[in-house]
């Protein structure tokens, strides 16, 4: 593939899409917690914010029985993104918790970016839940551009700016979820399982 100035593909959505994946032990194959945050600036279903938290990824139950939920202020948009993107991401494929997660209304989102190096926090409130996603010890921004063969969905091209976070935590109603950040192979490098992702655009390529 060659870079082209004006991508002929169809722009699907664009915004911010950071994540935190935790494991109880570095030797574990499976993650103990999967979480993604969305601040969508543009989509066919409008704009909106959301966070997915699966603290029991392999359990087919939702909140409050287990901590599997999505909070969003634009449910229609997020149904589309969950179906078209999240379910196709290798980390989420086959996870029973994704289909069973409870959909919660989101009332507010507050970002505390700090200096973009030491700590970055998103705080979401709604439906009786306060969720804090906290990234710490960030590296420099890394611009990425992937073809559909290399993208997480295997169906879209993607542009983004990633910042690796060496530590991260997820706090639900004041209680931190168990697990810690590990390393994984990502874009041909060993990188952390916690990352900020700014200026992310997904494009369906022309067939």
């Amino acid at each position: 593939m060659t870079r082209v100035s004006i991508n002929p593909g169809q722009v699907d959505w664009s915004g911010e899409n950071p994540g935190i994946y935790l494991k109880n032990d570095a030797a574990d194959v499976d993650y103990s917690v999967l979480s993604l945050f969305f601040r969508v600036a543009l989509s066919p279903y409008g704009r909106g914010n959301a966070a997915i938290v699966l603290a029991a990824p392999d359990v087919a139950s939702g909140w409050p029985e287990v901590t599997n939920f999505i909070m969003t202020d634009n449910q229609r948009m997020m149904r589309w993104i969950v179906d078209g993107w999240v379910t196709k991401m290798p980390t989420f494929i086959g996870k029973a918790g994704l289909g069973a997660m409870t959909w919660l209304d989101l009332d507010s989102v507050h970002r505390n970016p700090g200096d973009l190096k030491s700590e970055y926090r998103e705080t979401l409130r709604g439906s009786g839940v306060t969720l804090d996603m906290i990234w710490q010890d960030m590296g420099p921004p890394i611009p990425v551009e992937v073809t559909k063969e290399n993208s997480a969905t295997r169906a879209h091209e993607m542009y983004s700016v990633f910042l690796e976070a060496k530590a991260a935590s997820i706090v639900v109603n004041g209680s931190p979820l168990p697990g810690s950040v590990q390393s994984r192979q990502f874009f041909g490098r060993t990188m952390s399982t916690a990352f900020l992702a700014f200026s992310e655009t997904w494009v369906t390529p022309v067939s």
Partner: protein
Amino acid sequence: MPLSEPITPGVVDWTGENPGILLKNDDGSFAAMALFFRVAWSPVGQGQVLLLYGTPGKAEADDGAPNILLSDNAELSHYLLDNFIGKLGAFRDSPAFENLIHVVAQSTRSSGDPMGHRYTETVAGEGYSVELVWEDLEAPRALELTPDQVGTGEHTMFTLLVPAQKAQIIVNGKSLPGAVGTRVQAGMETTSAFLYFSETWVIPPAASA
């Protein structure tokens, strides 16, 4: 350039949103110019900055048409002036550039739908309220431009362009004169009113070494 490496080489200068409105007089000169920055990452932090040339052709602005830089992060506004705006010929060469009044922004707000009909950004502070309005929006297009295709002449740039057929710059309730015109970007004819989302400016390795 072949796309064999998912990580683009170079150093990120800044990333975020960068919509603008360039209104023209009948003779083709600029009647009013505005650029808005919602920066998600820069070396000096996040922030929002509005550059307004209400009177682009004069160092001393006319009443009701100020030449101002409204910002909630003063360090960021200086960073953008020195490293970005000052490299864009249309802004650097304007008499308004040398005499900008720096104003603290107390609120910023966006509304509308960039894939709908109308989108706005409103920035207010210290007696100024500036509303940028884009209407008759076209479908978004993803762009990836090389240094010879961007205004700074120095960066690789990724962005998402949403052209607007109509636009207004409203200062304290009064619409500034001028009309949306045309321009050419990367060989594509487009308009002088535009939304840019998920925009990333990268200094290529040769320049950042």
